Every structure is written in C-alpha cells, then in structure tokens.
C-alpha cells in the first residue's frame, strides 16, 4: 500500500466516514467573558456523543464585546443532532436549564439558516405571563423577568441540515504522553477554526467505539481493534510499538469546515515529527457504506 508520511508520521491510506447532521449556533453573552464561558460550557457539558447525550455540542469560540449583539463578552456555541425535532428539544432543554439559569446571561441566534428553531419562542413561557417581547431591527427578542433581573433571549435561531458529524482522526503513538500532547496540539489548532467543534472532553476521545457489541442492548462498544492491550488479537490494527491511541472527533456546520479542521489537525499532530513518538495518523470508518461523507486522509494532508 503506498504510504504518505508527514515529518516521518505515517498517514494511513484510509478515510474518516462522517454522517449528515442538523446543527445550529447560538451566541451566549454575560456580564464578563468568564461567565459567558461558564454558561456555554454548562450548556455543552454533557454533549459528547449522540449515542447517549441526545446532542453533540461545544464551544466554537469566545467572542469579544464588539462581536456580540448586546456589546457584552460572549461565546459562540454549536449544537448538533441527527434530526430537527431532537435539535429543537435539546436546544430548548439546554438553553432553558443551563443558559437561562446562568447569572446575567442572554442568548441570541448565531445562524440565519434555511429553517428556524424556537429559542425564546418556547422559553418565554417561563415568564408566566410577565414576559415581554421587543422587536428591534426586525428581530424579535423576549425579555423574561427572573431573580437576577431580566433574561433576554432571541425568539428564533437558524439551523442547517448540511452539517456533518463524525469527522475524526486516530492518533497512534509509542507513549500515552506523546499521543496526548499531539492531540492537545491538534485540538488547539482546530479551536481557532470557524464552524467546527470537537465535542469530547478537551476535544479528545480515549474510548473510540464500534457499532454493536456481543451484549444484547449495548449499541456501541469498545473499538477493540485499536485497544493497545489487545494487540495480540487477529482483529488488531495496531503495530507492535503502539502504547496508546487517542481520537479527535469533529462536528461541523459544513463538510468543508471539517476538511479544514482535519487538515489543521494532521499538521499539528505531526508537528514534532516521528521523533515525538507519533507513528501513525489514521481514521475511523465503517467500510464506507454507512456515511455519505468520506474524508480521505492522504488528500487532506495535502
């Protein structure tokens, strides 16, 4: 098999198989940048995988007071699910429980989108009749009286059905320390890019999964082919030198955004070269029959 190497790190000739998702963006603002981030992190805290969280979400980036609708510091948050109804439910629950409740917060639409999701349009009922609507510049906002003052929330936000979930990179190396350092670099590089998030803890997954299990009712189980402790098994995909594999999962509002993020990620991982202890960069797929988006690593590494 022809191999491509970046600074001595082998880019395995394979592809990341990704799926269509629906996604949205909201802007959370607060009196300070710190409180905006607390609110955003809380809203996207339990949002690593649709397998059991209902949604995948994360902080896209922090916004300065010059970039937000109300002139306060803010955070752009992305949220993804497999269908529109679930996205609506998750958005309502997460903004309702985590942003509405956060001191001094406000929540605004972050995407125009082809279709709309209710934001304040459903949360306004918390106002118990005391809520007020204000239309400013053609956009409707709800003012909901709360103990901390007033929660301002835009009526609707947009959604996109062209979002993509499950772009990924598997980083294979000679030590856990090396792999973790390389993945941390990659997540940082991706954090600067627009329209993408890495939903797992700190952007990194230590327990990549495969579909199904030997146990009935268990819909996902450990990706044993990449578990270094099972290298003896015939299923193993790992070279004998491997001590650890970590994965970075990327969700994006567009396929292009994921492409860009994977490109930045590959080069950040390979930055130190093979001497840093990284041997391979590969990706997860299901044979190519399940997901319509295939991100070929060799092509992306460019």
């Amino acid at each position, binding site marked *: 098999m022809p191999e491509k190497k970046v600074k001595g790190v082998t880019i395995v000739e394979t592809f990341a198989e990704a799926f269509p998702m629906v996604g949205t963006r909201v802007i959370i603002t607060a009196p300070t940048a710190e409180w905006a981030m607390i609110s955003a992190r809380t809203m996207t805290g339990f949002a690593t995988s649709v397998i059991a969280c209902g949604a995948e979400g994360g902080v896209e980036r922090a916004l300065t007071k010059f970039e937000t609708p109300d002139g306060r510091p803010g955070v752009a948050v992305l949220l993804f699910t497999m269908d529109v109804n679930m996205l609506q439910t998750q958005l309502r629950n997460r903004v309702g429980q985590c942003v509405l409740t956060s001191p001094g917060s406000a929540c605004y639409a972050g995407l125009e989108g082809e279709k709309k999701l209710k934001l304040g349009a459903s949360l306004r009922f918390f106002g118990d009749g005391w809520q007020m609507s*204000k239309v400013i510049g053609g956009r409707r906002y709800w003012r909901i009286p709360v103990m901390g003052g007033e929660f301002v929330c835009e009526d609707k936000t947009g959604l996109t059905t062209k979002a993509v979930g499950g772009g990924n990179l598997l980083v294979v190396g000679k030590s856990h320390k090396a792999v973790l350092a390389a993945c941390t670099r990659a997540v940082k590089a991706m954090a600067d890019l627009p329209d993408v998030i890495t939903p797992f803890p700190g952007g990194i997954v230590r327990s990549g999964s495969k579909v199904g299990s030997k146990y009935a009712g268990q819909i996902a189980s450990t990706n044993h082919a990449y578990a270094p402790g099972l290298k003896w098994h015939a299923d193993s995909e790992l070279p004998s030198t491997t001590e650890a594999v970590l994965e970075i999962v990327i969700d994006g509002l567009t396929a292009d955004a994921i492409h860009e993020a994977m490109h930045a990620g590959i080069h950040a991982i390979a930055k130190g070269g093979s001497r840093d202890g990284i041997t391979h960069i590969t990706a997860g797929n299901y044979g190519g029959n399940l997901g319509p988006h295939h991100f070929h690593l060799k092509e992306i590494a460019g």
Partner: protein
Amino acid sequence: MSALSFELKRRPTQRLDLSPLVPSRLDGLNRKKIEALSVSTTRETITVGDVFKVKGKDAQCLHFAGTDDRCDKIGARLTGGEIVVDGDAGMLLGAQMKRGKITVHGSAGVSVGASMSGGEISVRRDVGDQVGGVAFGETFGMKGGFISIGGDAGLLVGERLRRGLIVVDGKAGDYAGGRMVAGTIVLRGGAGRYAGYGNRRGSLILADKPRHLMPTYVDSGVMEFDFLRLLETWLREQGMRIRLGGRARRLMGDMAVLGKGEMLILE
C-alpha cells in the same frame, strides 16, 4: 438615473394630497402623465404640473423640494423605494406605509407615520401631534417600522402604538405613549404631562423622569436591562448618536388598564 424630483413652484391655494406620488404609482409613467395626476383636495382640481416642476427619471427615488405644511400625505401607503423631502411636510406623512424610507429635512404636521406597518421615517425637525398614531379608519396606531424625530413632537406620541419604535430627540408633548398597546418609544428630551396614559404593554423609555408622573405607575426600582443595549446598538447602526446604557428605573403601568407596560427612566 437621477431622482424623480418635484419642486414646489409656489404655496398652493389648497391642501395637497400627495399620496399618488409614490414609486409604485409613478413607475413607468412619463412626465406628461405624472404632471396630469390630480393632487387636489377640494372641488378645484390641481394637478402635479400646476404646482410642481417635475424633473428626473428614477421613480424609486423621489425628491421633493420647497414643500410646505400644505403638502399632505407624502409617502402615504408607500410600499418601497426612498423619498427625500427638502422642505416641510403636511399631515399624514408616510401614513400606512409598509416599506421604504422617508427623510424630511424640515418639519412635518400631525399624524406622521400613522398606522404604518414597516419602513422608516426620519424627520429632522419638529412634528405635530399623534406621531405614529392612528390613521383614519384604523383601530391601531403604528404597527411596525421606525420613526425618528430630530426636533420636538406634539401631543400623543405613539397613540395606540402596536409595534415598532419611535425616537424623539426633542421634547414630547402631553400624553406621550397615550393608550399605547405595545411597542417602544424613546423620549430623549423629556415628556409633558400624563406620559404613558392608558399604556397596556408598551415601553416608554425616558432620558429623564417626567415632571408629572401618573399615579397609576408603580415603581419597581433600578435594575439592568440587557435589551437596552440591543436597542442602543441597533440605533447606533442606524447612524444615531445615542447612549441608553444598561441601567434604568422601571415604573410599571398604566395600572388603570392592563398594567403590563413600563416606563424606563434611564440612569
């Protein structure tokens, strides 16, 4: 293409109904046909050609020059395009308009933007009573859009206002926000007596506490209002030099009616 312009030749002998002079009516008409349009309001017929010197071509951008307080209904029922008035305007300027933009460099008469549902009206100097009020035959006042007044306003600013925003830079007369249903009025130069009379759920934002406060308004104290920041940002985007800040004293009323309205007195 140069703006289609109407220069008033002399003070008309009667009030003029200029509502036919809107882009949707003028588009495709040649100068002769435009000059033949009637703008009279009495049995004595007056045509556009009798009182105006007509120049230019672009019907999407109308320009009135030398107009006075007898030029009524400029831009009434406007559905798009832009009208600039170098002079004064009479009553019902932009009444029932839906879209588009009207700028008056002088003053305007009563009922500016009456029952309008969208678009923007900017009057640089004073306006008469009932700005954003109720047009004849309507039950509500302004239903959307934006009116900004550079000078003073008369009685009943935003009477029966339903939706939309009115900003008055100068002084407002008595009964500002009178009987308003909803919507927002910003009064930067103070209000007369009975401000917010009969206000149901509208917001009356005042730079200073009015000298005469209705007893049917109940003080809720000072607090932060994030929506004031949204409003300030938007107004600045419109080119207005304004500072609302985020803090205000909130008085709820008018308790004689629904009582869900508010008077916000900026700190």
